[in-house]
C-alpha cells in the first residue's frame, strides 16, 4: 500500500488587485487540481495549507478551513454521519511546507487510514503598501495525493535545520510607530535575505539530498526527476548540478513562476507532468529549502502502474 500523486496544478494572479490575493490563488489552484484529477471536493479527507503570506496576514482560523469552505468540501453542518468529512489545518515551514505537509498527508493516506489529501500552497504580498521588497511571485499551487493499493509513493522523508544559518532569511511584521507615538503607526512586513542565502541553500540541500540517497541506496544517476524549490531562483538548477543530475531532469517552470515561494515544488511537478516526464519517471527526488535554514527532502517511487495518472 502506498500513495500516488493525482495532480499538481498552479494558479497565477490575475490582472485585478483582488485576483492576486493569496486566498484567491489558493482557491483557484485547489479547484483546478480537483478538476484535473476528476475528483469531487467531498472526496477529500485532509486539506493542508502551507502558504506563509496570506491576505491581511490572517492568523486565525487556519486558511485551510476557509479554502475548504470555498471549494465546498464536506461543509458539514450538520455533519453527515456515516460519511467521511474533511479535516483542514495549516502547516508553516517556509519553503519546505509542501514536503512537510506531504509527510503528514502520507502518514494518514499511505496505509489507507484516509483516502485522499490535498496540499494547497499560496503566497502573495499581504499588503503591498506596507511591505518592503516582497520577493516572491504571487502564485498558488495544489497537490492531490491519494491512496493506492500497490507499492509506491514516498519512501523516505528527511527534514533538517541548520540553525547556524537561521539569520540568513527572516521575515516579520513589525509595528512602526509614527514619530514616536506608540498607538499611531502601521504594521510593516519586513524581509531580510543575506547575500549568501542561495549558496547556503544549495550547499545544505546537496548535503541532505546526498545523505537521503545514500540511506535509500539510490544512485544520483538513477533519479529521473529532481523536483525542487523555485526560490532562491538558482536553487533547483544548481542543486541538480551539485548532485550530478542532468539539467533535463530538473523541470523548468514558466517564467512567471520562477520566484514562487511555498508552491515552488508544485510548479516544478506541474511542469514535469506537462512534459510527460513524470508519467515515465520511476524515482523522483524532492528537495526544498527555506528559512531556518531548513531543508526538506523526500524520495518518491512511482507505483508500477501509472496509467491512472491524470496528467
Amino acid at each position, binding site marked *: 500500500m502506498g500513495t500516488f500523486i493525482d495532480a499538481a496544478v498552479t494558479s497565477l494572479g490575475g490582472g485585478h488587485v483582488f485576483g492576486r490575493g493569496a486566498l484567491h490563488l489558493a482557491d483557484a489552484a485547489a479547484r483546478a487540481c480537483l478538476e484535473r484529477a476528476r475528483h469531487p471536493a467531498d472526496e477529500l479527507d485532509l486539506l493542508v495549507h502551507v502558504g506563509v503570506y496570506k491576505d491581511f496576514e490572517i492568523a486565525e482560523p487556519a486558511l485551510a478551513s476557509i479554502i475548504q469552505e470555498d471549494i465546498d468540501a464536506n461543509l458539514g453542518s450538520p455533519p453527515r454521519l456515516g460519511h467521511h468529512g474533511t479535516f483542514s489545518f495549516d502547516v*508553516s*515551514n517556509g519553503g519546505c511546507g509542501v514536503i512537510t505537509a506531504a509527510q503528514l498527508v502520507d502518514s494518514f493516506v499511505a496505509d489507507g487510514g484516509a483516502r485522499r489529501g490535498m496540499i494547497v500552497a499560496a503566497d502573495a504580498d499581504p499588503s503591498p503598501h506596507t511591505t518592503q521588497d516582497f520577493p516572491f511571485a504571487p502564485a498558488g499551487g495544489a497537490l492531490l495525493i491519494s491512496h493506492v493499493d500497490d507499492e509506491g509513493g514516498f519512501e523516505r522523508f528527511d527534514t533538517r535545520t541548520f540553525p547556524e544559518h537561521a539569520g540568513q532569511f527572516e521575515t516579520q511584521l513589525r509595528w512602526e510607530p509614527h514619530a514616536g507615538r506608540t498607538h499611531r503607526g502601521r504594521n510593516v512586513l519586513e524581509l531580510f535575505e543575506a547575500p549568501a542565502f542561495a549558496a547556503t541553500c544549495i550547499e545544505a540541500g546537496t548535503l541532505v539530498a546526498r545523505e537521503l540517497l545514500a540511506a535509500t541506496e539510490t544512485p544520483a544517476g538513477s533519479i529521473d526527476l529532481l523536483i525542487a524549490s523555485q526560490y532562491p531562483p538558482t536553487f533547483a538548477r544548481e542543486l541538480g548540478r551539485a548532485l550530478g543530475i542532468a539539467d533535463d531532469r530538473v523541470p523548468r517552470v514558466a517564467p512567471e513562476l520562477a520566484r514562487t515561494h511555498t508552491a515552488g515544488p508544485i510548479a516544478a511537478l506541474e511542469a514535469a507532468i506537462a512534459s510527460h516526464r513524470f508519467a515515465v519517471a520511476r524515482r523522483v527526488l524532492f528537495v526544498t529549502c527555506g528559512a531556518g535554514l531548513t531543508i526538506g527532502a523526500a524520495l518518491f517511487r512511482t507505483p508500477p502502474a501509472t496509467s491512472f495518472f491524470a496528467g
Partner: protein
Amino acid sequence: MVAATSWMLADAMRDARTPFVARIESVGASLPERRVTSQELMASARHHTRIDLERLTGIREHRMCGSGETSLSLAIAAARDCLARSRYSGTDLDMVIDASITRYVDDSTHRFEPPLSASVKQAIGANRATSFDLGNACAGMLTGVLVLNRFIRRGAIRRGMVVSGERITGLGTNAARSIRSIFSLQLASLTLGDAGAAVIVERAPEGHDGIVLAGFTTLAEHSRLCVGLPARHHPGAQMFTRARKIHEVAMADGPPLIADILARAGMQLGEIDWLIPHQTSVRAIRAGERVLGEQLGEHPKHLVVTVDEYGNTASTTLFLALHRYLDDHRFHAGDKVMLLSVASGLEVGVVVFVMDELEIDHGHVH
C-alpha cells in the same frame, strides 16, 4: 484506525497497520507573573459600558505578558518545563511542532519566517528533531497531538513534542478601545490570557493503553465565524468573533460527532472520568457539558474548568488545564481523560487517553 466512514478523521486503538500505541509522557506550562483582573481590564475600556465581564464569563483574572515576554519565550519556557518533568532531553525528540497562533518574538514584532518551531528546537537542544509550525487556531496543540499520535502509531517516530506560546492579550487591549456593548464582535477578545504549554507524546510500552482515541473534523461552513489578524492602526492584533453563532453550532453539531466517534471506538461518555474542554468561559463550558450529557444520555464524571483563573489562553488551554490538574494530583491511574477542542474553522477535535503512573508523577521534577 476508525472505519473510513467516520465523519472525523480518526485513530482508535491498535490495528495491523498501526502496531504501536502513543501516550502522553509529560506536560509543561509557563505563565507570566503579571495578573490582570476582568474588572481591571474593563476599567481600561475607552467607552462606558455596563458589561460585567467576570459575571458574564466567570473569568476572574488573566495572566498578561510584561515587556520582553513573547510567544516564543513562553513556548520555550513551557518546553523546558515539560522536559524538566520528562525522562528525556531535547536530543531524544524526533519531532517538534509549534502550534502558536501568535508569533511575537518581541513586544510588537510578529515573525513569519523562520518558523518558531526552529527556534524552540534550538533552545531545547532538539538537534535531531524534524520541526515545523502547525496552525489550527485554538485547536492547534491538539491537532499536533493527533499528528504525533499518527507518526508514533505507525512506528515512524518514537517521541515528539507539541508546544505553543500565546502572547494574545494584546487583542483584549485593542478590543477595550472599541467595545461599547456585549454585542461587539470583539467581546471574546476580552476573555484572553497569555500562557505557554508543551506536551511530549511517546510510544507507550507494550501493554499500556495510552491514547485510545484521536479524531478531528472541520465544519468549514462556519470557517469565517472567528477571524484574527493584525490591527491596521494599532500595535498587535484584533479578533472578530460571532461567539453566539459558534456556540449554537457547537451545541448542535458537537454532541452527535462526539457520540459517533466514541461509539466507533466502543466507548461511552459515562466512561470518561475527566472532560477537559477548550476553555472559553465558565458559562459556555458548563452549558456545553450539559447539552452533551443530555444528548448522549450520560455525563463524564468530572468537568475541568480553569478558565476562571487563566482566561482563554487560545491554543494552550487544554494542556494548561491538564498541567494544573496534574500539579494538584487530581488524577488516578486508569482514569480516562477526554481533551475536547472546539475552535475557529470550525474545528472539532477529540483525544481520549488513559492516565498512567508516569503522567501522575508529573509533580516530580526530574
